[in-house]
């Protein structure tokens, strides 16, 4: 049964860039920063592509932001192999409820069988959108999708999807990463899944893929055209750098180290 899968592609600061809080403490300094796709979203796209490679279907990728997010929609998202893109053109503040509302409206129109989102974005680490979206749509949700085998396994090398579609095409089996182990759940479709780091190893955007991406369909919508009010419910009050690490000390011998670990650090 062909699957229609909706995935997200958030533009985030490249972890290679040095992040500085602005002097007013209201946000980070954007000048000179490099950007890329949220790595968890890249994993979501990879999983969607593996599923549609196996079962047929279509992968639609969504990003919300100013015109710069088109860059990430084209490459890697479309260049990796997603079929088409939807760009929600929005400049200005937004929070997770607004983002989930946009995705909800798009889902109501597109009617995908499955949404795959990153479990969080590496910039603000909110980790809320997937759950909000499932809740808003009334769909089942499978957060922190992972896999049983390792990223070096044969299944991974053969690019087999870790999210498994049932024989009747009515549900998916998802292995979730939970505290200290794995949990396997079955989720009725339509469903929302969010990705863990160990779900798969995303393919590179190939050169032919990059060339092809520029001719793939990209639809522009706005929150207003979707009927979504983006007024945030959350505002950032203050941002600070983490405190600088204190210099280490040298201990004389192993007993002294054990003593420190036990009584000062309380690590053992």
């Amino acid at each position: 049964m062909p699957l229609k899968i909706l995935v997200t592609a958030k533009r985030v600061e490249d972890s290679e860039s040095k992040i500085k809080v602005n002097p007013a403490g209201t946000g980070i300094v954007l000048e000179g920063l490099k950007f890329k796709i949220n790595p968890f979203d890249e994993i979501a796209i990879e999983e969607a592509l593996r599923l549609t490679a196996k079962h047929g279907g279509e992968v639609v990728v969504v990003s919300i932001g100013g015109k710069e997010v088109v860059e990430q929609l084209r490459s890697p998202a479309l260049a990796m192999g997603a079929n088409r893109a939807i760009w929600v053109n929005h400049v200005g503040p937004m929070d997770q409820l607004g983002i989930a509302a946009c995705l909800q409206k798009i889902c109501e129109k597109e009617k995908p069988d499955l949404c795959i989102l990153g479990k969080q974005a590496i910039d603000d680490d909110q980790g809320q959108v997937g759950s909000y979206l499932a809740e808003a749509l009334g769909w089942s949700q499978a957060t922190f999708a992972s896999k049983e085998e390792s990223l070096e396994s044969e299944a991974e090398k053969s690019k087999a999807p870790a999210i498994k579609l049932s024989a009747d095409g009515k549900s998916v089996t998802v292995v979730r990463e939970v505290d200290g182990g794995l949990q396997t759940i079955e989720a009725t479709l339509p469903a929302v899944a969010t990705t863990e780091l160990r779900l798969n190893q995303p393919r590179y955007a190939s050169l032919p893929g990059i060339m092809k991406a520029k001719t793939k369909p990209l639809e522009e919508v706005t929150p207003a055209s979707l009927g979504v009010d983006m007024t945030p419910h959350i505002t950032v009050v203050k941002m600070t750098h983490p405190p600088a690490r204190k210099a280490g000390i040298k201990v004389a011998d192993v007993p002294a180290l054990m003593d420190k670990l036990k009584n000062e650090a309380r690590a053992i």
Partner: protein
Amino acid sequence: MNSGFQTFDGEHEAFRQTVKAFVAREITPHVKAWEQAEGFPRELYDRAAEQGFFGLKYDEAYGGTNAGFFFEAVLFEELSKCGSGGVAAGLGAQATIATGPLHLFGTDELKRRFLAPAIAGKCIGAFAVTEPDGGSDVAGLKTTARREGEHYVLDGSKTYITNGVRADYVIVAAKTDPSKGHKGVSMIVVEKGTPGFTVSRALKKVGWRASDTAELSFSECRVPVANLVGRENDGFAQIMGNFQWERLTLALGALGAADDIFAQAMAFVTTRRAFGQNVSQFQVVKHRLAEMATELEAARQLTYHALRLHAAGEWALGQTAMAKKLATEMCCKLADQALQLHGGAGYMMEFDIQRHWRDARLGPIGGGTSEIMNEIIAKQLGL
């Protein structure tokens, strides 16, 4: 973004992200081990070929993408940021000197036998001009290839040949007419396993440790005449033609390495403390970094200029020689200064800057020395 002054467009930059991701996943984590082992696994050629890295300027008929020089320029800049000049060189030679002559001058048969599998990563190539008795004087090379019926019979030796130890084929420059100087040189493909062709030594190097560098010997080595690349006795001009792009890639590689060197210097001086402040707060250090950044930018702009001329089909002999010399010497100098800024840490094997310092030293030697670049530039000046 579209100021009109950009050398690379959005697709080039997207490809840059792909190469960056490739380097971060497939190379950087293994650099220390491969440098120590003085070699990297053959599978890396497969991985690179899967991404089309060896066919960026070659025809689709042979598995290339015909994407062009700017894409390959991006590849060379980013590969050399992996931190191992040797890995970048091993992969780089496969994309340039070991395949360029086949693409430019080879028959369809040669392209099918060697170019296509090289693009696919299925066979590794090398290009051998330099000899134990001399490298700069290409016209004076001593290896001979005498014609006997439908064969050439090669005698002589080659040295400092990148990928030479594990190459499946070597494009050898030899004299088909020893009575002539540069008018007697030809390029001939010799396959691994051909009787009379042996790898006499794997060479130990100051830098580029992860790359394989060989001394090769040819003794009564018979190869079919079909293995001739281009026209007989026209090899000198062809080799010089092939060198143009190689020199540009060496300049581009130097820029990539220098970017990494500069980043390492910045990272160190902004955290290292002396006399109660960060080392970067001393004015001397600030000015040193300002000068390093200026020299890097100057070399970048000259190299990009030569690249644009080359991509536009101009025979930019002078600019290419200038760019190769300026960029590789700049990289050497930056590596030395960055090492100095690291203090004692710079001299320790556990810091990465020492490897750049060793690797960068090859730049003004390989692919034609700085002195030979000056010869070319002087000739362009009519001297």
